[in-house]
């Protein structure tokens, strides 16, 4: 529902890593967060600069 998505409260992505069952939950949570942060850092490095301008300039002709 639209209202739910517009909340500003951060919603970190939770992932369950089955292989890490034996690790203590706190340690596992931290590892997951670290992996996610690394991934976002990687993505940051390839993201186009100036998001607003880039998105504004992306215009297509209507197709089928």
């Amino acid at each position, binding site marked *: 529902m639209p209202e739910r*998505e*517009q909340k500003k409260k951060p*919603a970190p992505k939770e*992932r369950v890593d089955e292989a890490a069952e034996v690790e203590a939950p706190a340690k596992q949570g931290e590892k997951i967060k670290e992996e996610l942060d690394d991934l976002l850092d990687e993505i940051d490095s*390839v*993201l186009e600069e100036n998001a607003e301008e880039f998105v504004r300039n992306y215009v*297509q*002709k209507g*197709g*089928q």
Partner: protein
Amino acid sequence: MAVPKVCGIETEYGVALRGAADANPVLASSMLINGYVEHRKIGWDFDDESPGRDARGFAREGAAPPEVETHLVNTVLTNGARYYVDHAHPEYSTPECSDALELVCADKAGERVLARSMQAARRILPAGQEIVVYKNNSDGKGNSYGTHENYLVDRSVPFASLVRHLLPWFVTRQVFTGAGKLGAENGASPVAFQISQRADFFEEEVGLETTLKRPIVNTRDEPHADPQKYRRLHVIAGDANLCEVATYLKVGTTAIVLALIEDDFVDKDLSVVGPVAAMRVVSHDPTCRAPIELSDGGTCTAVDLQWEFLRLARKYADETGLEACGGETVGNDVLDRWEAVLSALERDPSTLDGQLDWVTKLGLLRAYVGRDALGWDDPKLSLLDLQYHDIRPDRSLYERLVRAGKVERLVEEADVTTAMTEPPSTTRAFFRGRCLARWPDAIVAANWDSLILDVGSDPLRRIPMLEPLRGSRAHVEGLFEECTTPAELVARLAS
């Protein structure tokens, strides 16, 4: 009786010419296709990436791009695919495939062809300019372009039966076919994020249009096959998918549902009230819980209706078998996958990260919202929404996720590479592709249902290919071994 579900996907790619003041998408699209065809002819080696250098031995620094023909470029490739400019977009139509897995591979090969085309174009563009291609369906500014599926269907099935059952099918399958999209368009009510890129653009239930007032069920009737026996169902109500599981399910399940309809197996009315509105309701609800109204009373969720289709499909598999739906192996695997996905959608959609595009994209967006405390209207999220679909391997966010091990793949990359140049072995695409590979100069015209050859003497010879399953490797491999010239081939076929 259900006919074998020969299938294909045609994708209109988004195209942007960057670094140029005056970007002409028809020109850019033409450059991509001409660039790819030239690269294939000359066999350019892309290991040496010098954007300004031309393989013919001179540099193009600062030079204007060469004269490119802007009348619509159209070519057929040695893998049996068609690659052309359509409505200011580069469009890639896969060759005909006989099952969903083969089609996943062929569709992914199309992405690689577009990536290779971008490399080829870079070599002839001035420094600082680049053509970038996106496999999506929406520019966020009211314009949409399609990803269409094609399925071989028995001509004798009344079209009304197809319409009746396909309307609720297309409305509800979005829960796994959607590629995800920020915001709403085309007058639809505002939403932060929705499941499908296409839903807002559908305005009619049935019709012939494809570019405006788009109908959920398209009535185009160009079978490209024996018109007495076959219909080609042209489906425009799908998203462009990058996740292989999403493509696999989209095509595999639709093939089974079509077989159900052909064999008159749908034993209850699954129609929904107001399918056009229902399509938006389903798309605008990433929790997959929104109720939709059924024509015969009551309400249910999209997933509930999907369970009904699956129930029928399982019954069909037991009683009739899935030979017509890609064979028993792929067919039954599709059923199991479908079941697992529906269960996950009910329990927790986020567990389908890496399998469904909308879930994968939403996970990425949520991660950024979480880390950077962004509002859902932040331009950075719109950029992520777009760049997820970038086809450049080093810029594509989807490919980045694949490399990070976050995405489930169904096909080996080596097989995808092969599918860039080799046709499927199971359909008439094999004959088309092999002829093109062996005798490129003798092929005057290649269409879906015929080849026109120059055998060295008048007149030109036309080889009809009206049976989509005739012309497979099994049928014609021997022919290619025995014939060394097009003239011999034509003579053998005539005998």
